């Protein structure tokens, strides 16, 4: 058997990097397999130092090209002329959706994956989340096999390493963690914060907890307040696999990284009833080869991992590896977003900001907290609100009448303070939101195309409606003018919080993974990316993925030592 490693990690994004670091630091010779190209921290951030006038199309990009090759990726907020090379070409990486069920699958196929282009919001989940499926009763997924207390030390472990800035709030449903100093609110946000907290008892507005370093941390950063993270950051001012976890793994001398290798399937050894390794397709030559290892971690992203499992067919697992439950590919979730309200914060004309803060503010969930006497609403679960205020810049001149000296003079001063509130709402796990493999069509490497069938349900629509009403009411009461709601009705996928396709659970008949992200059916197979999630919470999931990954590695290595794998 050639190329035998102690552990194989599929994917080098936010969870793959964490799996690699923890496995290597625990003494395992680890192979990380990345389907995309190699990216070197710093050197390959080719647009990092380009100023606006140095970008070929001044940041405007190439609409014609985007329409043809990036119709989905270009809709992502972080996609631009300066970041396009960290997003896939939709034309080269097709997937299938029914006509009436669009799904926006945002992908970054490179070393570091989407950890280069993520939004960096880093919140802990709470028992409001881990008990949600159980509390709702039948029909809304299966109960999480873990509770907050199981994960709390691992959140701490992760936060201490990555560095998260933010405020301590003392909210039971949004637990405090190890926090670096928060970014500062701007003047307009402080006005709105005061108004909301005065008129809506129990509601808070805080700085987003974010993996941007407000001071130097573990030899990285601090963040330079450029707010161009998705171009890559030579200062290591934000957390990514390239800035933090992969270098830590490399330092052990036990890390091997292979790029341009698309995992076709996990090799299942029927005799030993174990995963033996993975079969890969070389992205450049399309040749097939195999890697063998003692344990396998799938960190290929929620949909990538589902695709690999479904494509790993054997006599024992005819519908895909570790799929005795039939749940692999099912229960796909995302968060609702792209709905809320905006308005103008009056006054403060003589105030401005210095620097470009790489994050915004946040109004934690205030619906369905289980508190006595709270408002009855027509939905289960809840939402948080991402908010941000800024003064309008020169671009407002394009929408306003005016020409010549007067226009030029007017745009020398910033415009009014505008504020936007956008809800991020919980999505229910539903069996009918699922992915499978196209029986006929393949991509250029011969991988069956993923078919995604996913749509919002009434509960998500009801959350959406409440987000708009509440956001507008909060802005009105805080004294904003010209308040209007907006609803861009983003299809699922748009929040880039897709999760749930190989869920954790207590019962092997209804879930794919156990309480340690270990496949019920295949003891040396672990899944710790978003696929493992049994519910979606309303807060951003990446910190939870990282904590689950570190915890899963700890369990895997302990089991390995006990010869249980």
């Amino acid at each position, binding site marked *: 058997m050639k190329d035998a490693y102690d552990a194989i990690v599929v994917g080098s994004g936010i969870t793959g990097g964490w799996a690699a670091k923890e496995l290597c630091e625990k003494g395992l010779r680890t192979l990380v397999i990345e389907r995309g190209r190699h990216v070197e921290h710093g050197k390959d951030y080719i647009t990092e130092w380009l100023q606006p006038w140095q970008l070929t*199309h001044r940041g405007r990009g190439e609409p014609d090209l985007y329409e043809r090759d990036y119709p989905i990726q270009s809709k992502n907020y972080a996609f631009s002329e300066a970041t396009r090379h960290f997003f896939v070409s939709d034309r080269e990486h097709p997937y299938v959706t029914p006509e009436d069920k669009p799904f926006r699958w945002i992908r970054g196929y490179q070393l570091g994956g989407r950890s280069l282009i993520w939004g960096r919001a880093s919140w802990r989940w709470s028992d409001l989340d881990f008990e949600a499926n159980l509390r709702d009763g039948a029909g809304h997924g299966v109960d999480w096999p873990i509770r907050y207390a199981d994960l709390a030390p691992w959140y701490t472990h992760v936060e201490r390493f990555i560095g998260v800035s933010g405020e301590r709030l003392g909210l039971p449903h949004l637990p405090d963690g190890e926090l670096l100093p928060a970014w500062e609110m701007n003047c307009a946000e402080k006005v709105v914060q005061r108004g909301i907290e005065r008129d809506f008892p129990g509601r808070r507005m805080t700085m987003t907890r974010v993996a941007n370093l407000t001071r130097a941390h573990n030899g990285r950063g601090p963040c330079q*307040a450029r707010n161009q993270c998705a171009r890559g950051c030579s200062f290591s001012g934000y957390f990514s696999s390239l800035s933090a976890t992969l270098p830590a793994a490399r330092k052990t001398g036990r890390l091997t990284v292979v790029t341009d290798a698309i995992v076709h399937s996990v090799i299942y050894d029927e005799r030993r009833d174990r995963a033996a390794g993975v079969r890969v397709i070389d992205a450049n030559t399309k040749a097939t080869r195999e890697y063998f290892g003692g344990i396998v971690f799938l960190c290929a992203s929620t949909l990538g991992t589902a695709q690999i499992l479904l494509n790993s067919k054997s006599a024992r697992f005819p519908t895909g590896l570790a799929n005795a439950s039939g749940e692999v590919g099912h229960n796909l979730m995302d968060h609702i977003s792209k709905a809320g309200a905006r308005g103008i914060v009056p006054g403060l004309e003589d105030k401005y*900001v*210095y620097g470009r803060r790489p994050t915004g503010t946040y109004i934690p969930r205030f619906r369905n907290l289980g508190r006595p006497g709270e408002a009855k609403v027509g939905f289960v679960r809840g939402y948080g609100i991402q908010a941000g205020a800024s003064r309008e810049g020169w671009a407002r001149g394009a929408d306003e009448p005016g*020409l*010549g000296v007067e226009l*030029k003079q007017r745009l020398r001063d910033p415009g009014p303070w505008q504020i936007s509130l956008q809800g991020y709402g919980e999505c229910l796990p539903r069996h009918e939101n699922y992915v499978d493999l196209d029986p006929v069509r393949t991509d250029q490497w011969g991988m069956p195309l993923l078919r995604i069938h996913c749509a919002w349900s009434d509960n998500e629509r009801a959350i959406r409606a409440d987000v708009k009403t509440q956001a507008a009411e909060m802005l009105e009461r805080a004294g904003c003018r010209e308040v209007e709601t907006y609803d861009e009705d983003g299809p699922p996928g748009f929040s880039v919080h897709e999760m749930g396709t190989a869920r954790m659970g207590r019962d092997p008949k209804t879930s794919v993974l156990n309480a340690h992200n270990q496949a019920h059916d295949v003891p040396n197979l672990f899944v710790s990316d978003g696929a493992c999630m049994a519910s979606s919470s309303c807060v951003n999931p990446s910190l939870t993925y990282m904590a689950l990954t570190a915890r899963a590695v700890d369990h895997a290595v302990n089991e390995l030592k006990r010869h249980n794998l």
Partner: protein
Amino acid sequence: MPPTSSSAIDRREALRRAALVLGGVLSAPMVAGVLAGCEARRAPAGAWQPRALTPDQADLVATIAERILPETDTPGARAVGVHRFIDAMLAEAYAAEERQRFVAGLADVDRRARSTHGRTFLECPAAEQLALLETLDRSADPAFRALKELTLVGYYTSEIGATRELRHVAVPGRFEGCVPLTQVGRTWAV
């Protein structure tokens, strides 16, 4: 001046400026980035030829852009080459239909000049040009608004627009949420 020495001066000047905005610390990737920017701008001034537009159309675009954002105590749209940016966008970034719509918009400006004043737009005196454009602007004429928007983008993302007309700091190094506007002085370019 021979091109080598002028580009050497450009490089020194660019690095000096970068050092200023970066607080005097220059790392290797920063130097590489700054110099890459110099390379991109090294085309000699007289040699420019429009690619999507005819020379007359490019002149018309430059003239309209200058009326939208004229020279004041800082250079105007023509001096910073807004028409070159617009021509490049039309040549490289937009689909054929967009290009045709844009060129049709230009023809419409000339048609209006002829029917109102009996001469082409470029032959009209500045005051007539401005009045004609103000009519289009107030009526939110879609073709004109598109040209106006591209003019604003081209101007305020130019080095002069971003750093002399407005304010730009490549590496702020910190964030302060509530400073007197007078401390910054003008709109941030980014």
